[in-house]
């Protein structure tokens, strides 16, 4: 399959698609595969999961600019909205599946791919200004705390501690 054929298949598919790029010799791929199967069972008919063996489709993998495996390519409305490389936890996989079903397209992309560069830049700049001014000029620390919160909101999606905490909270809320 070449890139054009692959893209045509994705665009013709009426449902969101998660494409698992894997290889038989790859340990993390073998761990991810059953997790993906387990999570996807709850989304049958809503989200499709395709698997591509990187050894059998080297041209396609190169054309898709895959830098490492396992990689999950996440498509919605025929467009790639995010990609995740490396082993994913069951909770992280569930978050991706859940986000793909959000009706608002922009919201879905934000939930899977995290903040856009513009969004991140806005939050980091604003947070830095609000945090720095009170510290440098001796104003009320309240404004510095607000600045720190705004700063964190610019990187929360890349904070492993935050991700672990929210994943834990999600799994607790599911079990209640």
């Amino acid at each position, binding site marked *: 399959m070449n890139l054009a054929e692959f893209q045509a298949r994705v665009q013709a598919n009426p449902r969101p698609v998660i494409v698992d790029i894997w290889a038989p010799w790859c340990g993390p791929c073998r761990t991810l595969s059953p997790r993906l199967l387990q999570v996807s069972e709850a989304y049958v008919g809503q989200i499709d999961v395709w698997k591509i063996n990187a050894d059998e489709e080297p041209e396609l993998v190169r054309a898709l600019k895959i830098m490492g495996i396992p990689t999950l390519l996440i498509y919605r409305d025929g467009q790639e909205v995010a990609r995740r490389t490396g082993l994913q936890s069951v909770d992280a996989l569930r978050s991706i599946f859940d986000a793909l079903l959000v009706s608002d397209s922009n919201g879905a992309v934000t*939930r899977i791919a995290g903040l856009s560069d513009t*969004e991140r830049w*806005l939050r980091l700049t*604003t947070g830095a200004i609000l945090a720095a*001014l009170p510290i440098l000029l001796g104003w009320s620390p309240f404004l510095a705390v607000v600045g720190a919160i705004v700063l964190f909101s610019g990187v929360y999606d890349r904070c492993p501690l935050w991700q672990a905490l929210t994943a834990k909270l999600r799994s607790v809320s599911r079990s209640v």
Partner: protein
Amino acid sequence: MIKVNEAGWDRIARIVLGIVMLVLGWGGFVTGTFGVILQWLGFIPLITGLIGWCPLYALFRFGTKSA
């Protein structure tokens, strides 16, 4: 999930306005009742600019962001 209803220029204008109001209020450049008002009212344009969603726009089904 909140749907963004502000254009980029709108968001930046709100954030700048919010920062200016907060600096004037919390920095002591404006004192008295007006200073206290600025200290707290400044958070409104700041937050609505940061999240890109204005409740008043939503209420009146208006928005600066093109569809």
